[in-house]
């Protein structure tokens, strides 16, 4: 499969359609790829992502589940160990909490625990996050990637563009390991170039979304949009931002981070999730450990506040990172000496 050049293609697709197309291609290729989830059949799952797939693939490959998240995850594992390649949709990432035992204690560990006798090719599709997906409240807006990044044996992927969403999901479905595949709800309608030619994006590879010389900004998921906008706004000030999208959160492409930092000497990390214990802390520490001598300023994080997500929009807006918080952080770091 050759890698088509997204800069040559002109086809635009939404993030949602890109995800659907990835599933569709893989389900056509392999009838053992089966989508399980609540309302995934005609309704297309929580957000319509799988619409039309049931019509094409039928019950054999698209299966409505009862509201039994833990059993669904266990079912996926049993099926995965015996020849299927399940994709699970959790209607909201928040509900994966009900299945975390099967995901983290079982699926993540079975290849190791059983000494390589088996493996678990499962993709857990997890729509998460808030922002332009408004007023969903404390149980439908969280960003929980950090839980899963802390579990050896799992891979964690989080695309920020339609192009990445498609290529990474195809890689995730083909991966022999369990993959937590995070989708940002507020990105579903975002459009971007997605070539018609088939391609995959290997897991574990970051992407430099913007090259720059002044500072390294690492951003993922919905935050990527903010970072790109902030970068444009900072150009006139002479701040030339390099933006790295790790895309895979575990294993993450630390070499790519280090290379950029050795060039820019300054770092801002952005996460939507609440600050304490988020994944950017890990990245920050890795950079600090490896690039201590190259750093001209403290590494600064822009992150969600340490609160449950409130319902009222006026409160909600205070909780998440936004462009002005990001600009302020970048400036602080750039003007530090």
């Amino acid at each position, binding site marked *: 499969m050759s890698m088509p050049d997204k800069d040559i293609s002109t086809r635009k697709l939404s993030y949602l359609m890109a995800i659907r197309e990835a599933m569709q291609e893989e389900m056509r290729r392999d009838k053992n790829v089966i989508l399980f989830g*609540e*309302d995934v*059949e*005609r*309704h297309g799952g929580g957000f319509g992502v799988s619409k039309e797939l049931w019509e094409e693939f039928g019950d054999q490959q698209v299966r*409505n*589940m*009862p*509201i*039994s*998240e*833990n*059993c669904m995850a266990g079912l996926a594992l049993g099926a995965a160990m015996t020849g299927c390649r399940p994709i699970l949709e959790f209607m909201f990432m*928040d*509900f994966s909490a*009900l299945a975390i035992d099967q995901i983290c204690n079982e699926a993540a560990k079975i290849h190791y625990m059983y000494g390589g006798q088996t493996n678990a090719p499962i993709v857990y599709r997890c729509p998460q996050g808030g922002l332009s997906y*408004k*007023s*969903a*409240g*404390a*149980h*439908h807006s969280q960003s929980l990637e950090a839980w899963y990044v802390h579990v050896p044996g799992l891979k964690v992927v989080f695309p920020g563009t339609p192009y990445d969403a498609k290529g990474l999901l195809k890689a995730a479905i083909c991966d022999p390991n369990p993959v937590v595949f995070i989708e940002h709800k507020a990105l579903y309608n975002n459009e971007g170039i997605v070539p018609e030619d088939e391609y995959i994006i290997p897991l574990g590879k970051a992407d430099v979304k913007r090259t720059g010389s002044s500072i390294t900004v690492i951003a993922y998921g919905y935050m990527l949009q903010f970072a790109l906008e902030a970068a444009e706004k900072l150009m006139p000030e002479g701040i030339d931002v390099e933006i790295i999208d790790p895309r895979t959160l575990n294993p993450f492409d630390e070499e790519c981070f280090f290379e950029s930092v050795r060039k820019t000497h300054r770092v801002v990390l952005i996460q939507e999730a609440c600050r304490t214990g988020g994944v950017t802390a890990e990245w920050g520490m890795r950079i600090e450990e490896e690039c201590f001598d190259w750093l001209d300023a403290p590494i600064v994080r822009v992150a969600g*506040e*340490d*609160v*449950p997500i*409130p*319902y*009222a*929009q*006026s*409160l909600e*807006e*205070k*909780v998440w990172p936004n462009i002005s918080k990001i600009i302020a952080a970048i400036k602080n770091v750039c003007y530090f000496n």
Partner: protein
Amino acid sequence: MTGQSIIPSREKQLEMLQTMLKIRHFEMAAGQLYKRGVLKGGVHACIGQEAIPVGISAHLHRDDYITSTHRGHGHHIAKGADVRRLMAELMGKETGYCKCRGGSMHVAAFDVGSLGAYPIVAAGVPIAIGAAYSIMHRGSDQVVVAYFGDGALGQGTIYEAFNLASIWRLPVIFTCENNYFAVSTKTEATVALKDIPGFAASFGIVGKRVNGQNVLDVYNAAGEAVDRARKKEGATFLFFDTYRFEGHYFGEPEIYRSREEVQKSKDELDPITLYIATLINSGMISKQAIEAMEKDCQREIDEALAFAQQSPLPNPDEYARYVYA
């Protein structure tokens, strides 16, 4: 009193009708707000299902507890919650029950015994068990009603709760509102449980399937269950057949059922229409009195809307208030 049907007093009956109407008007007002873009987020109306919380709450004291769901406005209004503070909550105002940190899916009204709405399907049920435990511990005669939908029967935690309620004879009424759908999924396609009394008996509790569109049937079944709980004679599993007239949430496309099916249900299964007919037939109330009642309800909801509209937004700088007690 098992099996015997009790006719509530006229006063009680009119009160029940009034509460059903109040819920209906509240939900319709919320629907309007949603249409006008004032409400964002998921708002799940219980239109068509009003008889259940009303028939149950007719037996409850103010300090009895309920746990509720994503479709919880009716549970709260029936339990006596202040519609002004409910409306303010939906509209994201500081005067809301939860100071607008909760919203429609997380309404709660601790002043009238609501321990809150839990939109994570079935999550409220073990919490209800805990309240029931604390009742036993304190030796009070309160009871707990745990509301959940038919879809919640997929969640294992429900069975864990049945088990504990049986083992400890907890004063709880498990209240399943079977509206035949979980979002787009027909419950019969994903939930195997059919014989409710048989199932409950195998767990050592009492189970009963009841017509949830007839508020008097609800009233009677709930009366027995509440009585059993109050006397510390154990838990009951009530399974009410009902129908939701709106989409799963306002704005939901409803591809899974025909307009005809919905219309037919509205025509034949509206618990309010049915009850009004019964009341009029039995001569308990006149058409005019009903119209007056409707006006009263409408006025109350209008006042609630006005209250909510005039209420202040929260202070954004207080977004971190209430994270820790």
